[in-house]
């Protein structure tokens, strides 16, 4: 058990290190010149002294490995460099943008798990017609990309009904949360459909098992059977799928933030990509890759802890 955890920790650490190097090297060798951007298009008029100064200041002429070393040691000490475009400390920029993104992902996770499990349980105990209806809705919901869900939600709930704001992040806690409702539904839609399906399948499998059948015959109240014997055992696959879905939301947040004009790290990344703002692209990429890998790692560990079969089968 300890060996399995140690092995996975080591593997995650090396994955993060290698991917940080890939991210850094890709941006290092990119054809667009950072120099041109820092000088604001004035590279033709800048004197050689000015160019040399900028190159020295940003370390543009240093070899790749040396620059990578500077960057990665900075990452560990909280010095993430300065944005070329916004002339601001990257660490501070991230700090101001992260709450929106975390709020969005957190709310999307909560809503999609609650909604998915509820629909899945309902589908497993509902009649045939209701079951088919739920299958159709979850199949289409699964195939609906977040940004398409976004325009549908906005045109109904923001434009037609005016219940929610269509764009922006809002200020203050309650108001910000209000602005996150539609985006988190759009972000969590696919996930909630996946969870609903998994819940339904797991519930059906548990409902057919011997101890559940016995309980039904003995006349144990139905809600008690569902809660104590069925849902609890069905939770293992549900937890796993929820975890994996949370990881995919880390990437999905970029598109959803853009669709709703939220000021999170996703929109910051798109902006930085368009402006070739290398330090910001590197920083956000490593944050997203890190979050994605860590969530997957935690799911792996949970799986290891919950299910003794996996625990015993693993090295």
């Amino acid at each position, binding site marked *: 058990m300890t060996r399995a955890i140690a092995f996975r920790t080591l593997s995650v650490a090396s994955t993060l290190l290698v991917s940080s190097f890939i991210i850094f090297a890709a941006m290092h060798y990119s054809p667009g010149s950072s120099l041109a951007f820092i000088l604001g298009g004035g590279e033709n008029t800048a004197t050689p002294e000015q160019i040399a100064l900028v190159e020295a200041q940003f370390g543009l002429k240093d070899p790749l490995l040396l620059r990578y070393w500077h960057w990665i040691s900075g990452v560990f000490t909280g010095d993430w460099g300065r944005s070329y475009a916004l002339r601001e400390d990257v660490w501070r920029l991230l700090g101001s943008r992260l709450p929106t993104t975390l709020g969005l992902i957190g709310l999307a996770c909560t809503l999609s798990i609650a909604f998915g499990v509820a629909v899945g349980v309902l589908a497993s105990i509902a009649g045939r017609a209701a079951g088919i209806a739920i299958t159709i809705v979850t199949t289409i919901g699964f*195939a609906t990309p977040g940004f398409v869900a976004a325009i549908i939600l906005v045109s109904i709930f923001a434009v037609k009904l005016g219940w929610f704001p269509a764009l922006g992040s809002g200020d203050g806690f309650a108001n910000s949360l209000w602005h996150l409702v539609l985006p988190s539904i759009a972000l969590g839609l696919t996930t909630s459909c996946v969870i609903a399906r998994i819940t339904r399948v797991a519930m059906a499998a548990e409902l057919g098992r011997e101890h559940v059948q016995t309980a039904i015959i003995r006349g144990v109240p139905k809600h008690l059977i569902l809660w104590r014997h069925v849902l609890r055992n069905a939770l293992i696959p549900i937890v796993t799928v929820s975890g994996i879905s949370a990881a995919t939301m880390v990437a999905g947040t*970029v598109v959803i933030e853009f669709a709703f004009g939220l000021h999170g790290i996703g929109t910051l990344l*798109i902006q930085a990509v368009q402006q070739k703002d290398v330090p910001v692209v590197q920083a956000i990429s490593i944050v997203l890759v890190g979050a994605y890998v860590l969530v997957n790692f935690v799911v792996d560990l949970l799986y290891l802890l919950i299910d003794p079969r996996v625990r015993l089968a693993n090295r």
Partner: protein
Amino acid sequence: MQTAEAITGPGRLARILEQLGVAGTLALLLMAGVCLVAIFAPWIAPHDPLEVDIANAFGPPSATNLLGTDTLGRDILSRLIWGSRTALLGPLAIVALSGSLAAVIALTAAWKRGWVDMVISRIIDIQFAFPAILLALLVAAAFSSGFWPAVVALALASVPHKARLLRSEALRERAQPYIEALEVQGMSGPSITVRHLFPAVWPLFSTQLILSFGYATIELAAISFIGLGIQAPTPDWGLMVAQGQATLIQGEFREALSAGICIVAVVTAVTIIGDRLSHNHGRSI
């Protein structure tokens, strides 16, 4: 031999339709329809998709413009019809590229085993760390945005999923006695892999490719939506959702909504087909 017959045999078609069921057959018909529309777009489209007519902007649905017109007075229906081309070709290119890469990588790992397999598996693990959208953004930042950079990035991002499944499947097949028998007979590794190992894993692999077409459609449309994929004025569904989104507040939802419905319809159809086919493998993909 089995595969040659599998593609052409009439009995096979009937069996596939039986596996697909009613929903699957409808989905297949829908996809066939979209393919025809894409092929014959120049003849079907009532207007030039690029023809700007500012005076007729936001025109309501009429006899000449069945779905109305967009911000620049372009015919929405014609743009949808032309947009089916990138909507099919893009994901097709992604699936073909990532499928062939994954096949080469996974079959090499399964055949060689030992340290080659270990190195390849480690590379696959690292690639797993990059979500598709992020990889596409990185490629856009490092090189340029557009159709091909997005296609290559999304293809690379989807290699590890395919390679991982194919590798474990091929490893299982590799352990079968008939493969060893062929080896003893002196058949070379590459030809056993191409003639026996790959055909044996193809049914499962092809189903996975179909399912991945759906994901590729969503991802490519999303990249175009955020402005780093297919560029205006090319008619493209993802791009149309983005353009239509800008006028949503004014109540002009036709462009965004109709393009969104097209995307959802194609992805739903592909997912249903893939799901139905994957049931006979008895394993989740």
